[in-house]
């Protein structure tokens, strides 16, 4: 057993049934990701990138195959445990930011921490402060998302994802809704997190963003057609 192995997918299949139509979103995906890796998953629309990310992030279950996350079987676990793992071990970054509009920046960042039993109020506040300082957003702590630019909202979303010190960050098109300048700022933020030791798995269709990763995986029709390192 590789001590550094964080994610191991073996023969993963995902089939969607819509009325009488059967759609094979993922076909026999086998993939390993080690701690500290920065992986990009690229491919055309509908190739299964986001579905793969959902399976890795325990938001969806595979129809077939084996999935081991940090040495733990991630297939045969219940809803409650999946929620706990998502909360403790996985940080999500979405294309549409998915900040809660009626919560302030601080409350948004604190939200996943409130689902944990092992953190006191002071612990949570401290983690929020540290995380916001890291992205230089402390001064915006009392603001609501609607008062921020798109780039700032995504920085807050990244902060929310990392505040709980997860094992892996899953980013789904993190720059998809941003202009070039803000996209660059977010990518720099992810670069910095990776340099700090974070494991990142990012779905993107933007080749420039994909090349920021150290390893690239290309999908087509639900299958991995290329798995390579960027030099």
């Amino acid at each position, binding site marked *: 057993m590789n001590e550094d192995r964080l994610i191991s997918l073996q023969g993963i299949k995902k089939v969607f049934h819509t009325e009488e139509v059967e759609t094979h979103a993922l076909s026999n995906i086998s993939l390993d990701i080690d701690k500290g890796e920065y992986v990009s998953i690229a491919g055309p629309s509908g190739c299964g990138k*986001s579905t793969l990310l*959902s399976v890795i992030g325990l938001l969806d279950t595979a129809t077939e195959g084996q999935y081991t996350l940090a040495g733990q079987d991630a297939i045969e676990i219940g809803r409650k445990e999946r929620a706990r793992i*998502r*909360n403790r071990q996985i940080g999500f970054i979405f294309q*549409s930011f*998915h900040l809660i509009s009626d919560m302030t920046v601080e409350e948004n960042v*604190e939200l996943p921490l*409130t689902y944990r039993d092992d953190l006191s109020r002071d612990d949570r506040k401290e983690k929020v402060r540290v995380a916001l300082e890291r992205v230089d957003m402390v001064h915006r702590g009392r603001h609501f998302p609607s008062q921020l630019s798109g780039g700032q909202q995504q920085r807050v979303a990244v902060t*929310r994802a990392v505040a709980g010190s997860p094992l892996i960050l899953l980013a*789904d098109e993190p720059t998809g809704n941003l202009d070039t300048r803000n996209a660059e700022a977010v990518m720099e933020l992810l670069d910095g997190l990776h340099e700090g030791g974070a494991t990142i798995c990012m779905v993107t269709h933007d080749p420039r963003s994909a090349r920021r990763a150290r390893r690239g995986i290309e999908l087509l029709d639900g299958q991995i057609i290329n798995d390579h390192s960027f030099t």
Partner: protein
Amino acid sequence: MSRLLIDLKYAFRVLGKRPGFTLLSITVIAVCIGLSLSMFSFLNTMALKALPLQDGEAIVVFDTVVEGVVRGGNSMDAVDFEEVRSRVSGLTEFVAMLEGDVNISGRDKVRHLVAAKTEAGIFEFTRTQPVLGRAFTVAEGAPGAGNVVVISHKVWQNEFGGDPYVLDEMVRINGEPSRIIGVMPRGFHFPRTSDLWMPLKLDLDRIERGEDVLVMGVARLSEGFSIEMADRQVKQVMADLSERYPGTNLNVSAWVTTFPWTQMGNDGMAIVGACWSVALLLLLLGGINVGNLLLSRALERDRETATRVALGAPRGRLVLQMMWESLIIVLSGSAIGLLGAAWTLEMTNALVRNFSEEEPYYWWTFGIDGFTLAIFAAMVAVCIILAAALPAWRASRGDFNAVLRDGTRGASGRGAGRLSRALVIMEILLSVTILIVAGAMISSAYRASQVDYGASVENILTARVSIPEGRYPTAFDQARFAQDLRATLIRSGVTDAVALMSSLPGTYTYWPNYEVEGLNYPEDRLRPSGQLSTVLPSSMAVIGMTLLDGRFFDSRDSETGMPSAVISASMADLNWRGESALGKRFRLPGLPHPRYPSRGEPGPKRGRL
């Protein structure tokens, strides 16, 4: 705890940002709970609540049912009462009593009050003793004993200024001198509205069947017996009596019930059931309306829910968080509804006291009591399930993955859509049901208001006069009094016409059986019956009654000494269909003095009653 506060703070913030929605939802819940609660509480106090006496839930009254029609008080033959007392094990502590109007001459004026003539032991029966003086004894109830009276706290205060030396003071009750021997506590008016309690001077052991001595029976349920069980026993006794004494007891039964329920009569259960059904439908409609609104809101916010799911929110926390807003709405609306119901019931108290023709029953204290609070808790629970738990539970079961992937809405699943549609269908069904029930009630009320009583109700003032038997012992004396009263009223110029009758058209009155001359009745039960009212000559014309045939009473009827009658069209149709009823004769065998209509001129008249 801090997590709870976070969720609560967030819920308040979200509601505060949508004041219109919040206000509308709270108002709907408040109105529905307020109205439903008021209705439940009002009817419970009116008809179902235990009497506010010690072990009041065990106190029952039994009275007669003649041909399936419930008689309202003072209608049980005293001999039948004795039979029930000796044979029914489901009841105990029997007391025979009569409740009726009396005139009492106190220190400075004559007052018209309700009095109960009762067997000794009534105060032990009600577990209530006088606050001043004493109760009357068995000896004071013996025929020939001196008259004594126990007065209510209200009479003591109003007529005697709360004088602590009121005991042994003499008052005249219906002209008879009576000695005050006790004062009852404030609020005691057993059995219904009595202010005076006097011994019932009847020797029940010596009364013969057929003497027509009537009483009202009260008793307590024996240990382990329900009203239904006691009712069955009493009915069995009455059925035996009916078989043994068909001459007096044919088709005469009895029923055991509570005092509050007696006023509901034959249709009591239907009335209470209909009103409570409407109240329940209203509550369900409100709950489902708000539930649907909140479900729609929850579905609108499925992006937020999906985000929370992705961030690892446990399902329970997710549902609870979604419920907080609904709970705040439901609890706020419920609290306002409860306050509204309390206000409505308080207003009802005032309305009942100000607008009721008679003194309200002493148990008619409308307000928030234990029953109301229990119903309120049940209503809040129903609203929480309909408006909070159901929408939150359903909204937490969507396909949030799809929402997260493409950021679109409406991915909360077909299940949520089905629930929403089901709620809308329920709303429509309930609305239609309420409309139908309300329509039926309005229609019934309208029909009742349009009933032709056969008399004019315009520009007529009514008053009730009770003639003390002690001062006017014979029918002749009573008729003279009535004629004098009429003459005095007309002379005074208060009115130009006066009608005096034993009961007004459309009101319940004595309902004897009669026999049509020339007809044979092989079985007593075949004798027809009808309501009987006695009137002074010219009274019927004064209140606008019109004749279909014949004439009203005049001096000829009193001169001949032969009893005569004006009958209703329905009685004429029943007995003399296709021919004139004028001159026909019938007999009232149940009356102490049987009456016959006269034959020929002046003959029986036919009026519309």
